[in-house]
């Protein structure tokens, strides 16, 4: 290995020349900088959050009172379907990909993700698929069969419009983004860590995203296959789901939930990982039970593959298989309980500082437990028969999605925006933001449990006054609007901080992980000198000394302010998967327009298929082929020996 150079002597100008995106349109569309891509992911996903939220508010007006006819049944059914699809597929997972994209290389001590161009492709296809699915709403033919699109109602006999064609193609399109993104995360965590950052020194956030990336690779193909089947059945007369032609409606349910349940963990485990970063920082001590939390993250991902049938307990399955899936659904509670008590113990045994991100984390712990137990009870098959497809389940899944995803995400924005923009967000507004969201959320969603126990089915566009559901629904609507005001306060706080926020400096929270080592916002090359890691919390070594977790006696301290330069082109270390021994110097790719063009070609193909404009589909297909050829065309490497 090259000798270590002090930070002050790093050739900063040369690094800028090498890593800066080109000015102008080429730079905007062609950049492969993970920080730019990460920010784009975050902003785009927030836009989808707002769209899904607007859809929800319109529905809440309709449901505020019995027998309201603001929306036709058809409009209502499109709205609730789009709301679910948007939040689950186009908001909840991409927002976490945004954080992982931005934070990972900084946390791992690398200069980029493993496959920067694939990273760009992942973003552009996410954006393009989102534009595609919202085209459906714009022309009034949005998916209308709920987010899980059960057959046979998704088939042409019952659904002759383009609604479910958009659903099938939109999901296939999005799986491209999600799949290549997952591959990129796995490649990054395996090969792109700073020398010395062995597996027992990885932040829990990295464990979260890594686990779900594997979950995605093994579960998403089921959804892709199901969506391809659905499209072929609708358009080409095949029979996968039509029982009268020998198909099986339950085949769709199995395919969907084999993805659907692991997906629940996809949208919560990285968020739980972010909490595991924030709580120690604000408790001023390392996380309690780090190895237990890391292992329970992986265990949740694994057991998550064995519980999908609990979505199907009412379909008439044999008692023995219901007992098995019931048992697995109870079992998966244990890893979550471990994480909850690790967080509580960290707070209890630390000295908590109640800044805004910590408020969101503490609120999250409470909501996590409510959403957790309301899910565990549905593992009890006979109770599930009563509450499934009622507002009880709607309450449960919102405690999961909002409590375990949105609350950590907003907290994480407060935590990491100073790193991204160099500016702090306002603390006073932040506290207002938290309490408005927390009170609004519980006011809005807790009564849904009661509506469900009073027998209110989900997905009804109206209900009669005689049902006795008026009061709970009115409270829910008021709470939903209060919650929306809370989200609005967050947006205002972000916008104000961009111009007026106090300067953050490199490490405003005095946190221990590596992403706080460089100035804020980070330079395009992340690290002027590449660090060498000797503990789990390298920035706390000064204060904790030999007690720093993950430190091996005699191995010495991490090197942050001196390191290896690597400035002959876009270079960073390639390290071994377990111990992060430096193996190669990786030569990272330059900016490229091909990921963007490929996404555009895919969008054209999707439009061609959905509108039956075969010429457009063919042109788009040829365009995809051309982009791939251009992308993969061999190039001569600039300098000598490379991995």
């Amino acid at each position, binding site marked *: 290995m090259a000798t270590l150079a002090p930070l002050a002597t790093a050739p900063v100008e040369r690094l800028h020349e090498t890593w800066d995106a080109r000015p102008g349109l080429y730079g905007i569309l062609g950049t492969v900088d993970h920080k730019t891509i990460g920010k784009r992911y975050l902003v785009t996903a927030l836009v989808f959050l707002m769209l899904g939220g607007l859809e929800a508010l319109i529905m809440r007006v309709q449901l505020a009172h019995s027998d309201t006819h603001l929306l036709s*049944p058809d409009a209502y059914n499109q709205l609730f379907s789009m709301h679910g699809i948007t939040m689950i597929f186009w908001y909840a997972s991409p927002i976490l990909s945004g954080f992982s994209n931005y934070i990972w290389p900084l946390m791992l001590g690398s200069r980029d993700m493993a496959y920067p161009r694939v990273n760009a492709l992942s973003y552009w296809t996410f954006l393009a698929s989102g534009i595609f699915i919202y085209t459906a709403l714009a022309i009034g033919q949005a998916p209308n069969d709920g987010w899980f699109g059960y057959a*046979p109602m998704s088939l042409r006999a019952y659904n002759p419009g383009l609604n479910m064609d958009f659903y099938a193609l939109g999901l296939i399109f999005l799986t491209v983004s999600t799949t290549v993104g997952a591959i990129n995360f796995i490649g990054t965590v395996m090969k792109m860590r700073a020398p010395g950052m062995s597996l027992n020194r990885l932040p829990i956030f990295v464990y979260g995203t890594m686990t779900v990336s594997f979950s995605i690779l093994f579960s998403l193909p089921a959804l892709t296959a199901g969506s391809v089947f659905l499209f072929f059945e609708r358009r080409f007369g095949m029979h996968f789901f039509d*029982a009268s032609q020998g198909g099986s409606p339950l085949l769709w349910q199995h395919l969907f939930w084999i993805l659907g349940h692991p997906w629940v963990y996809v949208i919560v485990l990285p968020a739980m990982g972010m909490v595991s970063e924030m709580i120690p920082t604000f408790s001023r001590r390392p996380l309690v039970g780090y190895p237990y939390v890391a292992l329970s993250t992986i265990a949740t991902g694994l057991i998550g593959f064995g519980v999908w049938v609990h979505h199907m307990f*009412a379909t008439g399955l044999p008692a023995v298989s219901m007992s098995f899936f019931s048992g697995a659904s109870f*079992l998966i509670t244990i890893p979550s309980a471990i994480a909850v008590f690790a967080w*509580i*113990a960290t707070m*209890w045994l630390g000295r908590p500082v109640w800044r805004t991100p910590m408020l969101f984390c503490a609120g999250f712990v*409470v909501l996590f437990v409510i959403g957790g137990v309301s899910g565990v009870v549905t593992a009890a098959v006979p109770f599930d028969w009563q509450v499934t497809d009622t507002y009880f389940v709607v309450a449960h899944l919102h405690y999961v999605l909002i409590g375990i995803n949105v609350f950590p995400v907003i907290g994480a924005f407060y935590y990491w925006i100073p790193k991204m923009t160099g500016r702090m967000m306002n603390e006073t507004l932040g506290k207002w933001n938290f309490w408005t969201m927390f009170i609004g959320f519980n006011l809005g969603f807790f009564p849904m449990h009661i509506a469900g126990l009073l027998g209110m089915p989900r997905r009804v566009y109206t209900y009669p006054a005689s049902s006795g559901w008026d009061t709970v629904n009115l409270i829910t609507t008021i709470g939903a609007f209060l919650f929306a005001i809370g989200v609005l306060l967050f947006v205002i706080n972000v916008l104000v901080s961009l111009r007026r926020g106090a300067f953050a400096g490199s490490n405003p929270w005095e946190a221990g992980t590596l992403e706080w080592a460089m100035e804020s916002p980070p330079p395009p090359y992340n690290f002027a000198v590449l660090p060498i890691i000797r503990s789990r919390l390298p920035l706390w070594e000064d204060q904790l000394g030999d007690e720093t977790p993950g430190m091996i006696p005699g191995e010495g301290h991490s090197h942050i302010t001196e390191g290896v330069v690597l400035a002959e082109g876009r270079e960073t270390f390639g390290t071994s998967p377990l111990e992060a021994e430096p193996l190669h110097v990786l030569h990272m790719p330059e900016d490229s327009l091909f990921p963007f063009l490929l996404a555009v070609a895919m969008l054209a193909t999707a439009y061609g298929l959905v509108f039956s404009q075969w010429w457009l589909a063919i042109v788009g297909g040829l365009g995809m082929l051309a982009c791939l050829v251009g992308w993969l065309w061999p190039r001569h490497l600039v300098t000598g020996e490379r991995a």
Partner: protein
Amino acid sequence: MTAASRTGRAVGLALGACGLAGCGPLNVLARDGVTGSSETSLGWFLVIVSCAVVAIVTMLVLAAWARSRGRRARDDAVFAGSPGLPWITWGGIIIPAIVLVAAFLFTLGTLDAVAAPERAPAAIVQVIGHQWWWEVRYEGAGPSQAVVTANEIHVPVGEPVRLELTTNDVIHSFWVPELAGKRDLIPGQTNTTWIEARHAGVFGGTCGEYCGAQHAHMQLRVIAEPPGTFQQWLIDQRAPAAQANDPSTADGQRVFMTSGCANCHTIRGTGAGGAVGPDLTHVASRTTIAAGTLPNTKGNLMGWIVAAQTIKPGSDMPSIPVPSRELQSLAAYLETLR
């Protein structure tokens, strides 16, 4: 009454007293049926354990907050702290494992209890889902002995009744909360469940699986009555429709035959033999029309005939522009079909 059910009643009263919710007709935590009762006991157990878990964790978080507020010197220095592993072994593993095993065993016990009735069923009822109503059939000795009705299931009190669930179109779900949890109606398969009402009464139910535009208007009722009354009901329902004797009802029958009604509806004993909509042979004996959308009154019947697409948009029932005088006699005729 068991201790659990007493607690259940008490909590139910407390909920009601809070004014959080009036007691609706579909209350999951009220019960009458045999399977509904087992499910409700399990439900109360789970709800109470859940509330306890949430309360404990919330108090721990609040206590952690209170402790940190009480600290005098503001000291943000980082420290290594104690490992804190007992929190994880006890709070994260041992105690949850005990609670979960108990809940799992309770679940298995309840599954076993509701799997099958103790006696042979007193009746077998076929329930067939349609967008958006329920066809209900009781098979007799021969085709003439069959009973066909809609949206209402009559059952004898204190006797188990077996339900065979199929669908004519998409997936629906049979759900009468006080008597039994949901069981789906799925194309290509016959699911079975059973119900047993302990007391006479009317039990509300609704479709539990999203099934399209009018999923919101797909209710059903189970009417539990003494066995003698139930047998008499079966006999009445087997009879063909009442004869249209007086001029006014004869005119109504003529309107029925000439306005297109007979294309979709059957009235046994007349020429009307359509099989798309509900059998109307004894429509006047039913308590609601359009699957629980409206109470079955003459005015509602007339409104439904002329404005079905306004009342239940998307349903197969068209709005039929019957002139006012003819509408009167049509409704009068339907009123005689007891």
